[in-house]
């Protein structure tokens, strides 16, 4: 996959700038109902001014009904795809592989070769760790290949285009999910290339992010110190790794991990007395994981989402509730566009985590299993 260091890349950082930011959005069913993508696409369409066509994407949870891992990959060409397959062969027991279903779109150009693989790691006692390592290794060492989604029963769909066009391109209307997150990108720190679009994902984690981390260098060194290979060009990548490390590896809750990345101010911790001791401890131990500078993020995994803005709330974040549906967006207008009149909205304070859990629900119109799907694909190629 071409990346930002490639001078031939058409869209490079700095070619266009407007004083705006990215759009983030999420729709979660607390009951675990499966939802079509209409709402999330509409939310992002309303916030079109917040992106510039250099990146858009979605993460969907519960779309495959498959217990193993599903890898979504983008490759520069068929040679790179073959290279990826030969890399995976000894490491990943592939149940089925197939082109990722797409449809031709005049507004989505320069599409790479898109493929997905269903299966499980061939070796190792810890499948999660094996898949995480494999994903990072592919992204940093296999030329022209990039795995952009590697979770269980979830998938990321992203491209260098406006989000509505990305949805159309990836035929999202064919999927239903318990959790949808989406992103319209206005790149600042990195070129607008396919791999740099959001969501960023590792295992079940996916992050959509509006902002720019002033602490990127510190955070990158923190995650590298913890065994992660940072190979992309955007700060959002390290957010995924930070949460994977804190929650999966260190066993923290999402709330506690949020207290690491956007901790209470020292004056607040001091005012808590003994209650602040644990905050002080995690802050002093995991100082390198503190995310500084403007950000609002929606982090998702199979269990729900975490919506969080930086401690100074330098980027917007709105949460809406309507029955068992929870909406998160950069703008209230996005929620108003899809929710009923009775939907109440709230504006979380900077650093205040909003955790929404989703029930696993019952899939009443489960898509075909992976093996069957491989035969049914009708991609744009």
């Amino acid at each position, binding site marked *: 996959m071409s990346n930002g260091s490639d001078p031939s890349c058409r869209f490079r950082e700095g070619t266009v700038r407007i004083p705006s930011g990215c759009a983030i959005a999420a729709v979660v069913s607390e009951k675990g109902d499966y939802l079509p993508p209409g709402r999330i696409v509409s939310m992002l369409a309303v916030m079109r001014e917040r992106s510039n066509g250099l990146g858009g994407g979605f993460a969907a949870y519960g779309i495959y009904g498959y217990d193993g891992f599903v890898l979504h990959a983008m490759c520069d060409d068929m040679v790179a795809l073959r290279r990826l397959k030969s890399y995976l062969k000894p490491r990943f027991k592939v149940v089925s592989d197939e082109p990722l279903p797409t449809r031709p779109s005049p507004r989505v150009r320069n599409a790479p070769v898109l493929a997905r693989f269903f299966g499980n790691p061939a070796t190792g006692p810890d499948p999660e760790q094996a898949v995480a390592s494999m994903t990072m290794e592919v992204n940093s060492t296999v030329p022209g290949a990039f795995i952009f989604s590697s979770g269980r029963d979830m998938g990321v769909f992203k491209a260098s285009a406006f989000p509505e066009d990305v949805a159309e391109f990836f035929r999202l209307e064919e999927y239903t999910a318990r959790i949808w997150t989406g992103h319209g990108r206005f790149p600042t720190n990195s070129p607008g290339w396919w791999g740099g679009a959001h969501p960023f994902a590792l295992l079940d984690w996916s992050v959509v992010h509006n*902002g*720019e981390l002033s602490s990127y260098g510190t955070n990158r060194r923190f995650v590298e110190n913890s065994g992660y290979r940072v190979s992309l060009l955007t700060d959002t990548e390290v957010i995924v790794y930070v949460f994977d490390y804190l929650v999966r590896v260190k066993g923290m809750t999402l709330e506690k991990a949020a207290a690491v990345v956007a901790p209470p101010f020292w004056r607040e911790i001091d005012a808590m007395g003994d209650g602040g001791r644990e905050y002080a401890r995690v802050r002093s131990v995991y100082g390198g994981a503190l*995310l500084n500078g403007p950000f609002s993020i929606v982090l998702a995994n199979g269990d729900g989402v975490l919506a969080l803005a930086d401690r*100074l709330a330098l980027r917007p974040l709105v949460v809406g509730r309507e029955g068992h549906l929870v909406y998160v967006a950069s703008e209230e207008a996005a929620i108003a566009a899809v929710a009923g009149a009775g939907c109440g909205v709230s504006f979380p304070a900077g650093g205040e985590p909003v955790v929404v859990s989703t029930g696993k629900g019952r899939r009443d119109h489960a898509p075909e299993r992976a093996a069957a799907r491989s035969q049914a694909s009708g991609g744009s190629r």
Partner: protein
Amino acid sequence: MSRFRVSIDRTLCKQCMRCVTQCTFGAIEAWRPPEVPGEPRWHIQSIPRPKDSLCAGCLRCEFDCPFGAITVGLRPPSIRPNGHWSESSVSDIYQQAEHGKKLLSGSGSDSRLPAIWDRLLLDACQVTNPPIDPLREPMETVTFLGGRRDTPPVRLGFPVMFAAMSYGAVSLNVQKALVAAAARHGTLMNCGEGGLAHELREQSSSIVVQCASGRFGVDLDYLNAGAAVEIKVGQGAKPGIGGHLPGEKVTESIARTRMIPEGSDAISPAPHHDVYSIEDIRQLIYAVKEATGYSRPVGVKVAAVHNISSIASGLARAGADFISIDGFRGGTGAAPRTLRDNFGLPLELAIAAVDDRLRHDGLREDVTIIASGGIRSAADVLKAIALGADIAAVSTAALVALGCHLCQMCYTGKCAWGITTQRPDLVERLEPSEATERLSNLLGAWKMEMEEMLGALGINAIESLRSNRDRLRAVEISECALKVLGVAHAGA
């Protein structure tokens, strides 16, 4: 061969003789013209007369003259210009030929090696990432010393502390001012290797006690008196050698504090005589931890030398809670000049190399790195942190705040500003409460500057700058140095 010329403007001078009393080096004498038969008596009064060859360039006379009559300047070169033989190298040979002794100096190295700090520039936020206004938003500079393994941390209000200066090297008044200013700003002073004077024990929560090879003043009470314990192995100004406080400086109070006989030379040997390997220092670290009941961080101070990253890795594995790295610009009371100018490593390169190595070895989160050795400003502090340090320790800057003019004559014990002396009449020149104010002002000013710079960086917590080398760019630094620093060139 005199380096300085003292000029006295006779039209301004009122012959008050203050300069004569202020000059501790005898560079201005009271000269009484000879009597001339028949001349009136009033004409025969003393006048100040310079003796340039004795002038140390401390500028005390110039600053203290109430009439502004004195100017101290550099003399023109007294040897024929030579591209290879500088005046100082020729002068050194003259001195050595005359005395047959090694040359000493105080303060830090004044060599012409470039200060890398001055070639590093910090980033600033613009449109896509807003700067933060420290006047409107909280700006957090709280930093911790140690506390990441088996001892509790010490909390610092901001990442600047006073580096080690012993009672003996500096006067007790200086130490009193240092500890008072440190306490006021919630940070620490290091009492150095000379023990902890009785007068300072009340404020011991703001003090790091040091244990050097001489073990002066070290007993159980001493180790448990401070907020942290530092085992001093090396010093940036003189890597590889120990310390020497001449007997004439060992007054009754210093002798009592150091637990040595009055008037005896206080010699810290080059090595600790129980430390000849990394295993030995591990034993010493844990002996101190045992002695202090694991109640405070225990660290090690080393000079920046060529394999500093391996040494730091070893110290981290040996159980050090913090590692103080002293660069070649580090100051001192006395150092052989040949060591001062030819040994060691620039602090900037040492910090970057150590941070990289500790991260590579998975040890960085276990230890606190204290950077010291010629840090001159709040910007230097932030650059040190961006290169990988947790805390910057300053001493020369603190002494300059107290009036030091870097005359480099500390080893003579004649400090005209009352800083590096034990002569009672000179010690009195530094009034502790005024000195405390000056130090406190310096710390306060640096803190404000750091907050402002952090805001410009779009960062509101100091820990987000640590090792954040992406926010640094270099100007005209060699490719090799850039690689060690891990910093991109400006424009890249």
